[in-house]
Structures are given as structure tokens and as C-alpha cells.
């Protein structure tokens, strides 16, 4: 099943080992031009070898850095395996990075080579190439639009592989030899940490780059697989950004378990392609799960009356059953029977429709998912497991299948490696933790105390079952005047379960006498709702400020308020005139709120919320994807509740 990481101790060796074991079994599947193209283990190995030799012939050496930017694609993965086999390091980037962020990553890491998917990504590098003296070559794999680009440093993936083919003639065994030379403690990947407020001169976040070794990554996954096995009969959908959790689950876990990886045609076709794949394993970000829940609810809203009635009845019944089981209550046999009937009649068809028919384990990464959303999916028989991990420490918890609990983030895999400090901070140590921050070892050392514990800056609690409960970032925990502590993220996650609320930030604590919320509406769902109610609107700004929309959002907030302590009930809220956007640095690229930044950015708005004003004029600066800036001016209403 899984490779023994004591014997097969690097990722490159795992690739070779599994290739010898599986040979002509399919390893990767990629939809292109409407057809699923399979690649066997042998083919992946051969392709990786050519990329590897091509890079070596161009001068790649141990310890060099190679940047990659693009959507998930087999060629990204081959490039990564090829680079790691040379003892070099991969720095993955998010596709929606704008050029200043690309420049920061490539220049700070002194990358020697870079892979870029297509014209759009290459253009980002073209913009900043002059300030990247270390960058020698850039390889692209989608040639569309690049036929007449005439830069000496630009080369197609195919040409690179041709170079590799030539080089192989004189160095037939070099790839094998280099694999033998890889060592467990070689740095393998750079993970970009997102929780930073420092900016570069170009106005982009200066993320720290945590270096993970082969061994750290493999140990992390071996820990996960101990409780949550992966099989070589499983299919995995590669969809999350490879610069994030996909680094572990998509690129590495299949190497260790022999799992098949499926790549959808385009990010936009995922909901269609996932039906054709019908995977056993899946990771979505919290944002995507919330989107999917909204999608299911809006599809049911459009269904005929009978289907809608049945689905709504059965899903709420199933949620009750899930809740009973979680609390350890006995479920009466007639309820079990009805629940099973509901599964057959309504829930299974829906699951099939969403491509989740064969799901055994689904993960949530990034931000925490609200308990309502998780219960909803559990009721649908999609057992979502919350994951807890940070850039620097990897993954330390997972739910065994029989212990899934949506209030926790899973069982602590190695109790010796994690503890809670007296202040309630989560501390970790051990070989799964990253090696250092690239080019900033001083900052890295500051994360540790004298006993060698890494301070995560997260607040949490380990319960009597040995499960970790994650509250929030320590610095984000808020104390209201009455002395009660609470986590804004927790309230936000509950609010975002509403199909009409796409994002929100909870304000409160300190001297503020009550809690309030800044909400961004879900344009599509609220738009559809407005259409059915015959409410005319022109743009997002217009729709968000409609009195009826305020009423709609108010109802959702009141529903959430019912379950909150009085001191932290939301008393006022505004519908923001725009969505939160990573291009405005309001969110991290993995979709988390950059809270401190937002509170500064909206300081005046927040001041108005806590004054007697009933509306507020915003002049917001907007940064477009191409780097230009502009501004919008509009009135935002401040609504009061109860």
C-alpha cells in the first residue's frame, strides 16, 4: 500500500519505486481537447526524466530554485518531480498572482529557472524579467499565443524535453544516479506563508518562504495515512492550487500510495468533469465547499415542487440524525429507516449529480468551514474532514474514519509533537516542521522557544478524545467588554453558510460595545433571488444596497444570532459595495481574510458603524488585475438589528 518511508526516503525514490511496481498502470489522467488522456507510471517517469535531463543540460544544480506558475497539469507535476530529483527546490505560485507577486517570489528566492503554463503567465514574467538577473530560462507548456514571442530566455516544454532526449544519449543513467543522490533532508519545496502584514515596494505581501524537506513532507503524509489510508484504487481530483494543500495531497500523496490523479480540463469545467471522474478523495477550500453548498441549494430551489419538498425534508432529517450520532445518542430504528429511504430517494441522486457518488474522504483546507456547512455535507453522506495545518508545520491532525467530528480538526497524530501552552497556544515540534525560512533564518528562529517548541500563533485545545479543537489565530481572538472571549472566524463561518452571503468580517471587542459585521453578498445567488422577486438592479453595487436585500441578509444574521451569547450577537451590519478580493490584498491567495489589513482599510466605515450615522460614503480604491488603480464612490447603508 504505502511506501515505507524509512527505506524509500525521498520523493524521487518513491517515484522510481512506484514506477517499478505499477509500470503500465495509469498514474495521471488529463482531459484535453474533450478527451481523457491517460499517462501510465512508466510514461510519467520517462517524461520526468526528459525534463530532468533537459534542466541539467541547461545547468541546473543541487540547491537551485525553480519557480512554477500555472493551473494544475501533469506537466507541472513532472517538472516538480524532475527538479526534486536534481536536489533542487520548487517554489509554486498561485495563478492569480499579479506580476509584482511573481517578481517577489522569483527575485527573493533567486530562482534560476521558471515554468509558466501559458501566455498569460509568461506575460507576467515578461513584465518583470529585467529585474530578475538570476532567472535564466522560462519554460511554457501551452503554446497558444506564444508562437511569435522572441525572447532568448523563453523555451517551450517540448524543446526542453528534446534537450533532455539529446542529453540522454551521452548520459543514459544520469537520472537514476541523481535519484540515488537525493537525501531525506534535502529541501524539496518552498511553501509561501500567508499570514504576514509586511509589504514589498510594489505593494504586495512579503510572504516568508518556509522550506520543507523530502522527509518532512513524507512524514506528514505518512501520519495522515496512518489514520486515513489511501489506496492505489482511489482516484484523486487535482484541483486545489499546487502552491497549497495540493502540494501534499495531489503531488506527493499519490506518489506514496499509488493513487490515480485526474486533472480537469479547465478550472471552470470542474463541476462537469468531476462527474466523469467520480473521485474517492477530494480536497476543496472552505470557499469552494460553501460555493458547492450554495449551488446545491440553488439547484434545489429551481427543481420541481415534489423534488424540492422531498429533498428539503430528507436533508433536514439526515442532519438531525448526524447531530444525534455526534452527540452519542441512540437513533430510533424508524428514523434510521427513513434516513436510509431519504438517501436512496433524494440524497444519492444529488450526490451523483455533484460528482460525489464515490467519495470516501473529503477534506477542507484553508479557512475553517462552518459547522452548518459540514453538517449539511455529512447529511449528504459526504464526510468532510477539517484539516489543520500551517505553512510552517505541515499536517498534525486528521480524523480517523470512525471518529469524524466536525467541531474538531482531528486526532493529534503524534501526541509527543503537539501541546497547548498555558496561554492556550498550539505548540508543535518534530521532524514534520519546516527546516527554515529561505534567506531569513533569524525570523525562523524567533518562532521557537528554548525547549524547541514551535509557536504557531494559533489558539486551540486538545479534548479528552485526543482531538484538537482549533479556535482562531491568537491575535484574532477578541475579548468583548464583558470579558467574554470569542473567535470572529467562527461567527463568520456560520454566516457564510447562507447562500446569499459570500464573505464577511466580524468587528468587535476592545472598546467597541457591540459586535457588527461587514457582509459581501453572493452576486449570483442574490441576483437570482432578486429576479424571482421582480427586483430590478443594475450592478453589484446597486444590488447590494437594495432595501429588500438588506432584509434578506438581516434574516440570515438573526438566524445566526440565535445561537450566539448575548454579548456577541451582531447588532449592526453593512452590505459592502464590492466583494473581498485577493487582488486588493484583502484576502490571502488561499482565501483567508487578512483581518488586520481590512480593519485598517475600512477604519472609517467601522467608525461610522459605531456612531449614530445611518449611512456612509465610500470612496474605495480598486486595484485591477493588470496593476492599474481606480476608485468608486457610493453610499453604503448601516443597518441595525433588534
Amino acid at each position: 500500500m504505502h511506501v515505507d518511508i524509512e527505506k524509500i526516503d525521498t520523493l524521487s525514490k518513491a517515484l522510481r519505486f512506484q514506477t517499478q511496481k505499477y509500470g503500465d498502470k495509469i498514474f495521471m489522467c488529463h482531459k484535453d481537447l474533450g478527451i481523457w488522456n491517460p499517462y501510465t507510471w512508466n510514461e510519467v517517469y520517462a517524461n520526468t526524466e526528459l525534463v530532468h535531463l533537459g534542466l541539467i543540460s541547461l545547468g541546473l544544480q543541487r540547491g537551485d530554485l525553480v519557480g512554477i506558475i500555472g493551473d494544475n497539469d501533469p506537466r507541472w507535476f513532472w517538472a516538480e518531480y524532475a527538479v526534486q530529483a536534481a536536489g533542487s527546490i520548487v517554489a509554486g505560485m498561485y495563478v492569480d498572482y499579479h506580476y509584482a507577486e511573481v517578481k517577489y517570489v522569483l527575485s527573493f528566492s533567486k530562482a534560476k529557472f521558471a515554468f509558466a503554463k501559458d501566455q498569460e503567465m509568461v506575460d507576467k514574467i515578461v513584465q518583470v524579467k529585467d529585474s530578475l538577473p538570476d532567472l535564466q530560462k522560462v519554460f511554457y507548456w501551452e503554446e497558444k499565443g506564444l508562437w511569435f514571442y522572441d525572447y532568448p530566455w523563453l523555451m517551450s516544454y517540448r524543446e526542453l524535453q528534446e534537450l533532455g532526449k539529446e542529453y540522454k544519449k551521452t548520459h543514459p543513467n544520469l537520472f537514476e544516479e541523481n535519484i540515488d543522490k537525493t537525501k531525506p533532508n534535502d529541501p524539496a519545496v518552498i511553501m509561501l506563508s500567508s499570514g504576514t502584514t509586511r509589504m514589498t515596494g510594489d505593494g504586495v505581501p512579503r510572504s516568508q518562504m518556509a522550506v520543507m524537506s523530502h522527509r518532512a513532507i513524507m512524514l506528514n503524509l505518512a501520519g495522515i495515512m496512518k489514520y486515513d489510508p489511501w489506496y492505489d484504487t482511489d482516484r484523486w481530483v487535482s484541483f486545489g492550487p499546487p502552491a497549497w494543500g495540493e502540494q501534499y495531497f495531489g503531488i506527493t500523496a499519490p506518489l506514496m500510495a499509488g493513487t490515480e490523479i485526474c486533472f480537469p480540463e479547465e478550472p471552470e469545467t470542474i463541476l462537469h468533469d468531476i462527474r466523469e471522474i467520480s473521485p474517492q478523495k477530494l480536497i476543496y477550500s472552505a470557499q469552494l465547499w460553501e460555493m458547492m453548498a450554495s449551488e446545491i441549494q440553488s439547484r434545489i430551489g429551481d427543481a420541481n415542487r415534489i423534488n424540492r419538498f422531498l429533498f428539503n425534508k430528507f436533508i433536514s432529517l439526515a442532519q438531525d440524525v448526524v447531530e444525534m450520532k455526534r452527540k452519542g445518542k441512540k437513533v430510533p430504528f424508524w428514523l434510521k429507516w427513513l434516513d436510509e429511504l431519504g438517501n436512496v430517494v433524494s440524497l444519492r441522486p444529488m450526490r451523483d449529480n455533484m460528482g460525489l457518488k464515490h467519495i470516501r474522504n473529503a477534506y477542507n483546507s484553508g479557512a475553517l468551514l462552518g459547522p452548518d456547512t459540514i453538517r449539511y455535507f455529512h447529511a449528504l453522506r459526504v464526510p468532510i474532514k477539517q484539516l489543520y495545518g500551517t505553512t510552517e508545520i505541515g499536517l498534525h491532525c486528521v480524523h480517523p474514519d470512525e471518529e469524524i467530528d466536525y467541531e474538531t480538526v482531528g486526532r493529534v497524530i503524534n501526541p509527543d509533537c503537539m501541546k497547548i501552552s498555558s496561554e492556550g497556544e498550539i505548540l508543535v515540534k518534530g521532524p514534520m516542521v519546516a527546516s527554515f525560512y529561505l534567506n531569513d533564518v533569524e525570523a525562523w528562529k524567533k518562532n521557537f522557544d528554548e525547549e524547541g517548541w514551535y509557536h504557531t500563533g494559533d489558539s486551540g485545545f486538545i479534548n479528552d478524545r485526543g482531538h484538537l479543537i482549533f479556535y482562531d489565530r491568537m491575535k484574532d481572538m477578541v475579548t468583548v467588554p464583558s470579558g467574554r472571549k470569542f473567535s470572529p472566524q467562527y461567527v463568520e463561518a456560520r454566516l457564510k453558510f447562507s447562500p446569499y452571503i459570500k464573505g464577511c468580517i466580524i468587528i468587535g471587542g476592545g472598546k467597541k460595545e457591540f459586535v457588527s459585521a461587514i457582509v459581501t453578498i453572493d452576486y449570483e445567488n442574490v441576483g437570482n433571488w432578486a429576479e424571482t422577486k421582480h427586483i430590478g438592479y443594475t450592478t453589484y453595487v446597486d444590488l447590494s444596497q437594495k432595501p429588500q436585500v438588506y432584509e434578506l441578509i438581516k434574516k440570515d444574521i438573526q438566524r445566526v444570532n440565535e445561537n450566539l451569547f448575548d454579548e456577541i450577537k451582531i447588532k449592526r451590519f453593512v452590505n459592502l459595495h464590492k466583494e473581498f478580493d485577493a487582488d486588493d490584498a484583502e484576502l490571502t491567495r488561499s482565501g483567508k481574510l487578512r483581518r488586520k489589513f481590512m480593519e485598517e482599510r475600512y477604519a472609517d466605515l467601522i467608525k461610522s458603524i459605531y456612531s449614530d450615522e445611518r449611512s456612509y460614503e465610500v470612496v474605495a480604491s480598486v486595484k485591477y488585475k493588470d496593476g492599474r488603480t481606480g476608485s468608486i464612490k457610493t453610499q453604503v447603508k448601516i443597518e441595525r438589528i433588534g
Partner: protein
Amino acid sequence: MNEKAKTVLKIHDISLSFGALQVLVDVSLELREREILAIIGPNGAGKTSLLNCISGFYKPQKGKIFFDDREISNMQPYKRAAIGIGRTFQNVEIYSGLTALDNLMIGRHPIMENGLVSGALWFGRGRRIEIEHRKQVENIIDLLELEPIRESPGAFLTYGQRKKVDLGRALAMKPKMLILDEPMAGMNLDEKEDIVRYVLDFHQLWGIPVILVEHDMSVVMDIADRVVVIDFGIKIAEGTPAEVKSNQKVIKAYLGAAIQKN
């Protein structure tokens, strides 16, 4: 563009009138190989009429049209399509009951070699031919990034998507030249930028010469090799974008100064 490049389409002194209304007066122009030729002019200047003369929907009373060194002045529109004159329409005309994919497959119809029977039975040669055509169509889907809407019926598509399908269908018939009638009308900035990129892409990839009618001057000035300006049915200027921009007649036509004087 190279002056010596071969001429693909040659229009010689055509005039068109509907009753007493003179729409085109002695218009001549040439489209050369690997060239993007823009036709601009104020509303009602006769641009679309000129295109309709080329694709054969209107028959000019006077003048001749040559395509690939052969006179086509009297040829039927469907034959002109078969010899390689492709076009898109100002008002999108795609089949709303068919998926985007099928709309594109229909574009291949003029060049499918199989007959009714082998096409219907779908085995042997008929099947091979269809698979080959589907491959070509998939290349176009890839080029125009239509993957997300491949299986969506035309009626469910947004305006911008329908325009893309329309363009895809014109490309599917493997044209030797392509007429684009306001491909960017009614689109937002993002969609416009996309279309410009597609036009440049297929133009670079397949070298198809293009006649482009477009109102967005920034687009025209950006991508056209040559520009022809028409006003009240008369060609008033021709040249590179820079030449046309500084031409006094053109400035007058657009700012309306000429009308005030008369």
C-alpha cells in the same frame, strides 16, 4: 504589410443601390495574404453592405469581385462559403437548439466529404471522417476557450459566449479569409480583450487574412495592418492606422464638420 504579398480578395469599383438610395459608390479594395484589414466609418456608411456584397447576400449593380484570382461576382452565397469565405454576423445567428459543440460541427458541414447514408450510419469511413472533424473542432474550442460551455445549448449562452460560438463556427469551416462584422459590439472590456487575443491567435496560427468591421477605434488601431474608411458609400481613405488617424477627411467624417459646411 509587405506590398508584394499576394492578393486574396480584390474588389473592383463596385456600386450598390437600393432604388434611389446609393449605398456604395465605386468602392475598390484589396485584401492581401496574412493581413488584418479594418473597415471603419460612421453609422450607415455602408460597411455591412460592403461585407454583404463580398459574401454574396447583396449583388452590386456595377463592379467585380475576385477571390483567389477567380471572379465570384455572380456566385451564390453558399458556394462562396464553400470556396473559403467565412464570416460572422453583427447580430449573432447561431442555432439556439444545438450545443456550442454542434454549432461548431455544423461549421464543418461545407467541407465534410461523406454523404448522407454513411454519415447517418456512422461506421467505417463516415465515422472516421466525423472523428477527424471533431478533432479540428476541438482545436477551435481550445483556441477560443469554449470548454466550459461545450455542452450548453445555444439558447442558454450569454451574448458574449454566443459571439464566441459564432466566431468558432466561422473558423470551423477552415476559411481562406474571414469577415468579422463587429465581433466586439456590446461586449465589456474583458470580453473585448479576449476576442482581440483570439483574433490575433488564429491569425498568427493559421495566417487567415481578416476583414474586420469594428467601432472600437482603440482595437482597430491596435490590431489592423491597414484601414479603409468609408463614408456615405464612398471610400475616403486607406492606409496604415497612423496614416488614417491623421487624415483630414477622416477627422471631418467622424466629427461631422463636413456636414456643417454643406
